């Protein structure tokens, strides 16, 4: 590890530490009620005291987010490929996609709950709905942005449509697909929490609501921070997959 690497790791941590210190200082100095705004120390205490509960409630939220995101990838990418490769499908599907996207997901959540119940499925569907759009849009954009030169090269060799898709268009679209996936995975967590807020039996969103209604603000904050950690971990997982699938993007450019 060079000095430069050390600095890259150190400065963000330093920033967080300073922010936490100022926060704690403010809360202690002005004697802020912990129900209004708990300090980092209170939140940490609450997190340690309720560690088992936090862990137990993380699992459903994690599952809802990851499965919703996975569904968005599995359905979104083929839809994007259709939209990008056929003018007819583009004209037919795109307005519907945009209309679906402009419906507020919070407003749809109660209906989804009526259809899919209080369990995992309803949250999964809401997470899917939220994550779907960025994946479709970014994949379609990437597919359309295939360099003309590569397409002409493939055509000059009389490549079949399938060959052009598999060997040129899809790999060329990978950077866009991952850009969409990174946005989608954090949105999926938000989708899962929306679902839990509207109606659920467990999950971090459920815990947050319960703690809040019992005026247990330190625990509510702990759940909130833990939710962000979940989002960051899932984001990092997508980045890790990206590096694995696209090793060339890591290599420095001249």
């Amino acid at each position, binding site marked *: 590890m060079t000095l430069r690497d050390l600095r890259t790791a150190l400065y963000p941590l330093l920033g967080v530490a300073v922010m936490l210190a100022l926060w704690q200082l403010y809360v202690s100095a002005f004697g802020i009620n912990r129900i209004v705004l708990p300090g980092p120390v209170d939140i940490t205490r609450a997190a340690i005291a309720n560690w088992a509960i936090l862990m137990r409630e993380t699992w459903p939220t994690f599952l809802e987010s990851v499965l919703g995101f996975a569904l968005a990838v599995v359905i979104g990418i083929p839809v994007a490929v259709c939209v990008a490769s056929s003018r007819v499908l583009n004209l037919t599907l795109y307005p519907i996609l945009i209309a679906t996207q402009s419906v507020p997901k919070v407003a749809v959540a109660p209906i989804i709950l009526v259809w899919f119940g209080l369990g995992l499925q309803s949250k999964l569907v809401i997470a899917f709905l939220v994550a779907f759009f960025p994946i479709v849009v970014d994949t379609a954009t990437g597919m359309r942005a295939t*360099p003309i030169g590569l397409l002409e*090269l493939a055509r000059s060799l009389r490549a079949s449509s399938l060959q052009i898709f598999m060997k040129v268009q899809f790999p060329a679209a990978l950077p866009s697909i991952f850009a969409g996936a990174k946005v989608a995975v954090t949105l999926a967590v938000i989708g899962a929490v929306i679902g839990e807020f509207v109606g659920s039996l467990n999950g971090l969103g459920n815990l947050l609501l319960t703690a809040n209604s019992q005026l247990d603000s330190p625990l509510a904050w702990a759940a909130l921070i833990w939710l962000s950690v979940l989002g960051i971990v899932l984001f990092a997982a997508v980045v890790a997959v990206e590096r694995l699938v696209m090793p060339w993007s890591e290599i420095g450019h001249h």
Partner: protein
Amino acid sequence: MLQDAPAFGHFRDVHQSFARAGQAPLVAIERISFDLVAGQLATLLGPSGCGKTTFLKIVAGLMAASGGTVQINGRDVTEPHPDFGIVFQQANLMPWRTVLNNVLFPMEILGRRDAAAVARAGELLALVGLAGFEQSYPSQLSGGMQQRVALCRALIHRPKLLLMDEPFGALDELTRMEMQDLLLDIRAKTGATVMFVTHSIGEAVYISDTVVVFSKRPAVVADLIPVALAYPRSAEMRYAAEFTELQHRAGRALGITR
């Protein structure tokens, strides 16, 4: 042009115009006629936007001409042919493929990627001075090196006709001169017929058997200049009186010099 050598490419009254909404059609190529002799290197020389690239695409079968006869090896060109190799202005390498896999791309499409193809790719890369770069990615190479990879890719399936669209246009002068010598070297070794688009008079004269000078749009053949300089050519030739005279003739055809 030599009349006794067999015509490999036969182009008569090739015409190209593009329809434009609400306007008269844009005539890119008025009338181009010439013969491409087997094993020769012909350059298409002309000002920017004169239709040289359009003509090359027609010969490649990537675009249909509006009129005229385009024949390669006695057959009308109606679609791309695997006997052609193309080098574009940009290297057009796939960033997700290693150098070796970029060179092998045509063999994959043609369903002929085997041990022999891999060996040939290695030989070609060695020929252009890129031995040891097989596993590198394009982003690790300079512009000149990328264009060398593109050249190997165009040659991997042993094309009879090599079509090159201003392939060295984006390179600096010194790299460009190196690439010209490399091209002549490769041509001597493979015997391929080459059609080369450029807007550099010096480049056209230095590498060609024949310079086909295109007028500005709509293009006609302004002059057909046989270059009688012996191969192999060397940098010293660029300063010979004969070379200067040929450059003058091309310049006159382009309307630059008198």
